[in-house]
């Protein structure tokens, strides 16, 4: 029987968790058919014996996640990201295997590459799925609104293209014998028109919003650009980052890089402190991964109260400085 194939994203010799989650969904869809994986690499990187070994080891290791055959595609053009080239290679491998389905993680790159595969081959694509069952039609569950809503859908296709929502399904381990093979792609010049020509490193300085253990976030209730001084102070004391809601970025009080939510940054800190934020679904789509949420809001009935672990009711302009003061006082005692 024809196999399914999954694109594996990787960096520094490690497959991304999102790709391993994707394999769990691909394997359940395959229901016994072989699972193939595509690992892209460039000979410039492979040049070093070390790099070649690392990619080979990574491919070989995919057996723990149910991959029967891992294809390493080498091409010098793969040294920098070229999404049309990735799509061409994934499409070529799927054709060669006569794959019954193609999977990738619903990451920025995964979604983008799969949309290009779909556009090139005139095939439908279902993005950000959390479950997919074979059949005619194929039935699936996918995320809408950044995960705030689910959709049950039917997909009519002889070769379904599916991306798997990041961090929505668990990684599953198993033991499969993995055969590692080399795949030689054919690329056309036009497939390299869109490619990364430069990487500009972030300015650095401060704790990054996406990585911070604690995020102190302000919404409309903060009232002004200057009002964020107390939010910054508390974030500083907790070694955390400052976040905000869209109302705040639209007003120009904070840069968009601080925005948490569906169209901002998605975060998963140990603690999220939401000050003067009502808890709109699009805001919560960005912080629902937080281990704990503390809401500080003057409205005891605000929707965020149903999505938080702890709450303090009242004026954030009094409460936030009082918390900072209390932390300082405690440190004074300890020191």
């Amino acid at each position, binding site marked *: 029987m024809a196999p399914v194939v999954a694109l594996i994203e990787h960096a520094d010799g490690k497959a991304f968790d999102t790709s391993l989650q994707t394999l769990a969904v691909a394997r359940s869809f395959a229901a016994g058919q072989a699972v193939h994986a595509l690992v892209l690499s460039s000979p410039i990187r492979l040049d070093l014996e070390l790099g070649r070994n690392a990619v080979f080891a990574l491919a070989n290791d995919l057996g723990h996640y149910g991959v029967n055959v891992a294809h390493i595609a080498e091409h010098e053009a793969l040294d920098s*990201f070229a999404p049309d080239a990735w799509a061409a290679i994934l499409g070529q491998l799927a054709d060669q295997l006569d794959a019954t389905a193609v999977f990738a993680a619903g990451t920025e790159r995964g979604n983008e590459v799969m949309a290009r595969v*779909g556009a090139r081959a005139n095939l439908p694509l279902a993005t950000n799925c959390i479950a997919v069952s074979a059949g005619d*039609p194929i039935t699936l569950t996918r995320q809408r609104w950044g995960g705030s809503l689910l959709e*049950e859908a039917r997909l009519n296709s002889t070769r379904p293209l599916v991306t798997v929502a990041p961090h929505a399904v668990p990684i599953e381990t198993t033991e499969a014998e993995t055969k590692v093979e080399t795949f030689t792609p054919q690329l056309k010049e036009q497939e390299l028109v*869109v490619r990364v020509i430069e*990487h500009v490193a972030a300015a650095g300085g401060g704790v990054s919003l996406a990585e911070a253990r604690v995020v102190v976030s302000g919404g409309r209730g903060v009232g002004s650009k200057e009002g964020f001084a107390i939010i910054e102070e508390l974030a500083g004391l907790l070694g955390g980052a400052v976040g905000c809601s869209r109302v705040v970025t639209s007003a120009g009080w904070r840069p968009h890089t601080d925005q948490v939510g569906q169209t901002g940054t998605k975060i998963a800190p140990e603690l999220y402190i939401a000050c003067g934020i009502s*808890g709109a679904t699009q805001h919560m789509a960005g912080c629902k991964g937080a281990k704990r949420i503390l809401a500080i809001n003057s409205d005891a009935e605000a929707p965020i*109260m149903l999505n938080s672990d702890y709450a303090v*009711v009242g004026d954030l302009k009094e409460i936030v400085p009082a918390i900072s003061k209390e932390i300082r006082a405690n440190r004074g005692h300890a020191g």
Partner: protein
Amino acid sequence: MRVLVCVKRVPFTGGKMVLAPDSMALETRHLGFTISPHEECGVEEAVRMIEAKSGESVVLTLGPAEAAEQLRDAMALGVDRAIHLETDGSEWDPEATAAAIIDAIRADEAASGPFDLILFGNESADSGGFQVGLRVAGALGRPCVTGLKKVTIEGASVRCEQESEGGRDVYAVPMPAVLTVKEGLNLPRYPSVPGRMRAARKPVATMTPTQAQARLELASLVVPAGQGRRAEVLGSGPSAAPAVVEMLRKIGVV
């Protein structure tokens, strides 16, 4: 230069998602609607480009009659004219949406010349398919760069910046091109009163395309189970500070 920006009308859902009785759509009777945030930045960018280079900006939407409101909003920000691909309000899948937009672009280009740039949101706010812009670009044979936070026209090409791990990835592609953008690309202006008045007189071309057979078909919507967090109230007002710090200590952040 000519710039087209494609937008989608979506509801402001507020604190929770409520479904219509048939579970095929959100209950939107009490909700306001908006252009989704990514595309709002696309509109702003199109207007800025034409302000800088002169030419024509056009806004296009596929959606119900009420989506004319979003076209007027875009024109109030400075877009010159609009194309409305009117539907009965049912959901079109990404392939059908792209097919109708491709036809409309071909017709407009045949009449008025090629668009140097066509802008889309990176993904629609509601269905989040991540593909209409790429399908349109594929059919037109134009390069497409996605998820952009900065766009700079440099002669006959366009420099594109996309957020990536630890910084930004940069692309440069020749025009004509298709770009998909994200919120944060710019800070959209608020519409002025004269802008709104001018928008009321700007031309809207309305067409009713036929819907291609959907291959990705919505069966029903489901609101995911809540996270079941009913907040434990630690107190009210500044006197709650000691209880908060106690909690912070317990969970190990101070």
